[in-house]
């Protein structure tokens, strides 16, 4: 199952990068994708049925919009902190408990947090994620959990779980 | 002509590293820098002002391509450079295992 999915993904990738539909190209691409699927199939992700559920794609598009908006906001926030003469930063590492369970959702969440300016994911240990934050706003765990991961977590839950 | 001289200075920096450093890793880095300067010199010899990369295109009329020959030679030289670097590193790590140091002079004194 995983082999077939990886084969199809690799073939589509091949056709995208070569961008020609001659017979020779497709045959060479199929052979290459077969080799790739045989070598890397056992390391590919599980739970492939999730690819076939259109609801997830819908939430993904919404999530993209939210993500871009958050990145824009954070950009202006960080730029303000850099330009301001007093440099109002209060860096620190906070520990946020995770609600999402599956690994790929956690990866997505960690990458989203890293790509937002001002916050960087340091590590995931157990069920907690450690985030380096340029301005730690409060000391209460619930508040910074909502501030750091809450804004992405509910959408990611709908996409990947 | 300036670029050739700059390239030669880069070579001399690598040579300086090989001659004066005592740490084996630094010596390997010096060798790499010398290699890089040689690649750059060869690639610069084949360059032609306003030339195109040597990949044929049908639609161009009277195209001027840069010289493919130095590029082909540098292509082989880069991989050879990787091979020699790997070999030097293997020898360095082996010496470290035996003597517990990367210092070549100390190794020379310890001997055996």
């Amino acid at each position: 199952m995983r082999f077939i999915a990886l084969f199809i993904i690799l073939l589509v990738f091949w056709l995208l990068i070569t961008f020609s539909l001659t017979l020779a190209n497709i045959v060479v691409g199929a052979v290459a994708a077969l080799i790739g699927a045989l070598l890397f199939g056992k390391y590919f992700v599980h739970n492939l049925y999730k690819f076939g559920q259109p609801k997830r794609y819908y939430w993904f598009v919404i999530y993209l919009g939210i993500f871009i908006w958050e990145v824009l906001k954070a950009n202006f926030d960080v730029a303000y902190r850099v330009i301001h003469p007093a440099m109002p930063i209060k860096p620190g590492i906070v520990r946020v408990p995770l609600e999402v369970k599956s690994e790929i959702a956690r990866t997505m969440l960690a990458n989203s947090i890293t790509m937002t300016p001002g916050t960087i994911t340091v590590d995931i240990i157990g069920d907690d994620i450690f985030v380096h934050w340029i301005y730690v706003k409060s000391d209460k765990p619930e508040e910074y959990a909502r501030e750091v991961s809450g804004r992405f977590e509910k959408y990611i839950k709908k996409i990947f779980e | 002509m300036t670029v050739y001289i700059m390239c030669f200075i880069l070579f001399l920096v690598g040579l300086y590293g090989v001659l004066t450093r005592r740490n084996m890793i630094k010596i390997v880095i010096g060798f790499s820098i010398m290699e890089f300067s040689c690649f750059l010199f060869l690639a610069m010899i084949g360059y032609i002002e306003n030339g195109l990369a040597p990949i044929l295109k049908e639609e161009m009329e009277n195209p001027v391509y840069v010289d493919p020959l130095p590029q082909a030679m540098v292509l082989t030289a880069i991989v050879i450079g990787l091979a020699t670097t790997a070999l030097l590193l293997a020898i360095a790590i082996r010496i470290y295992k035996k003597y517990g140091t990367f210092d070549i002079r100390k190794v020379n004194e310890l001997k055996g």
Partner: protein
Amino acid sequence: MNGMTQIVKKVTQLMSGLIFMYGLYIITHGHLTPGGGFAGGAIVAGGFILLILAFGSKVISLRKEETQTSITESAALLIVILLALAGLFLGVHVFFNNYLPQGQVGELISAGVIPIYNIFIGMEVAAALLTIFLALVIYKEEVAS
């Protein structure tokens, strides 16, 4: 050698196949676009190195893998030499002769033996780089134990 965190592992699972595929694209289109056996082989080796670094050395049996890459390397080099020797006996009697029909410039199937050389040189480079890397990893494990 231990693996890295969940994040790196998951991204590696998604990306390593695509990196391998990109290496194959660079190799097979070496006579049309920039690239060729050397670059593509190095990229393919990079995909495997990423896998080993992310998942730690427990994921494969290193000794067996090293033997396999050694054999692949030797076989690929042997095939390159045999292909070159074949030029000595076919067509014009010159070592490294391009004896296959050359076809239309710019097509995927063209340039005679050059794509075949590319494929096997790519195999040789990838296997050689992997052998070097695996030798270092095995050495590290042995020193640590």
